C-alpha cells in the first residue's frame, strides 16, 4: 500500500494526521505543497480543490484529516 500526504508546514490538521499515521505504524510519503510546486499542481488536479491535508492511498483520495476514512482504508482497528 502506498500512502502519500500533501501538506503545508504550518497546517495543524496535517500535523495531526501524520502523528496519527506514525502512532499506527503506517509509512507515508510526505509532499510539501508550499515548496514543491509540482506537488501542489498535482494535488489541485487530483482533487479540484486547495484544502490540505490531502491523502492518496493507492489512488483513493481523502480530503482533510478524516480519521474514520483513514482507519477504514488502511485497515486500522481500535
Amino acid at each position: 500500500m502506498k500512502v502519500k500526504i500533501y501538506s503545508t508546514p504550518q497546517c495543524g490538521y496535517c500535523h495531526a494526521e501524520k502523528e496519527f499515521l506514525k502512532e499506527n505504524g503506517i509509512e507515508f510519503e510526505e509532499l510539501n505543497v508550499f515548496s514543491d510546486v509540482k506537488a501542489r499542481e498535482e494535488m489541485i488536479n487530483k482533487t479540484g480543490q486547495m484544502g490540505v491535508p490531502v491523502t492518496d492511498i493507492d489512488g483513493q483520495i481523502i480530503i482533510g484529516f478524516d480519521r474514520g476514512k483513514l482507519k477504514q482504508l488502511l485497515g486500522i482497528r481500535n
Partner: protein
Amino acid sequence: MFDLIIVGASAAGISASIYAARRRLNFKVVAKSFGGEVVTSGEIENWPGIIHTDGIELADMFKKHAEANNVLIEEGKAIESIKKEGNIFIISGKNSDGSAFEEKAKTVLIATGVHPKELNIPGEKEYKNKGVSYCSVCDGPLFAGKVVAIIGGGNSSLESAIMLSEIASKVYLINKNPKFKGEQILIDKVSQNGKVEIIYEAKTSKILGENFVNGIEYANKNGEIVKLAVEGVFVHIGRLSNSGFIQGIELNEVGEIKTDSLGQTNIPGLYAAGDVTNIPYKQIIIASGQGVTALLSAVDYLNKNH
C-alpha cells in the same frame, strides 16, 4: 463512572487535565481533535516563558505534558449531547467510524472552543477550499505568488496579513470598519508593510470565480460596488462557540456559554472554560487559566456533592 469528563483537548481542557491528574481524579478527556484553534494560531509570542513558538509546537508540548501525567485523551469523538439526569451527566456522540458512544460522569468540563465565523455571502460556500479559506497558516502556502484578500478587522486578520505578505504577491486587507481592533504592534507591522493594501469601510458582498476563486466584490463607504481580482480569500471575521449540544445550558446572545468567575455554568456540576465561554478575551493563556479555575471548582463540587 468517571468523576469528571473534560470535553475538548486544547489550552483549557489540557491545562485542566494536568491538574485533574495531579488530584488523582478518575477522569478522561474526549475531543474531536487535539489542539483546537491553538494549532491554527501560527506564531505565538505571548506565552510566558517561551519567547517564540508556534501553535503546532505549543500544542505538541501540551500533549507531552498531559501524557507525562498519564492523562487519557480520546480523540476523534464528536459530542452530540450532554444532559443531566439526577446528579449524573450523560455524554453521547459519535466515534470517528460513525459508531455511537455514551459516557457517564459526576461532573463535566466543557472546553470545546470555537470555530471560524462565515461571511454568509454568495460564492462563499461554493468556493470553500477552492480559494476561500478560514485558516491562513494552513492554506496560505498554496497561494505563493498570487494576489489574495483577507477579510476582517481584528488580530487574526492582521496576523494573516503579515504571514501572507511573505508568501503572496499582493495582499488586500478588507476591513468593514474605519479602524482595526487589535494589538498596536500588529497594526503597526501591517501599516508599514509595502505588500499590504488596507481598504477600510468596505463590506465584502460576493466571492466570484469559475473553477476556483478569481475575485471579490465589496461595497465601499459610498455604497458603490468595487471588484478586485484575487485568487485567494481568507476570512478572519471572528469565531463562534462550539456550544450547541448541551441541554439546558445558558448561553449569551452570541452563543457563548455563560459562566461565573469560577467557571460554573447555570447547571450545577457543569463547568466551562476557554474560548467557548463568554470571556471577551480569546487568548491561549486565558483559556489555560480558566481551565484550571473550572477544574478546581469541579473538585470542590465533587467533595461537597459526591
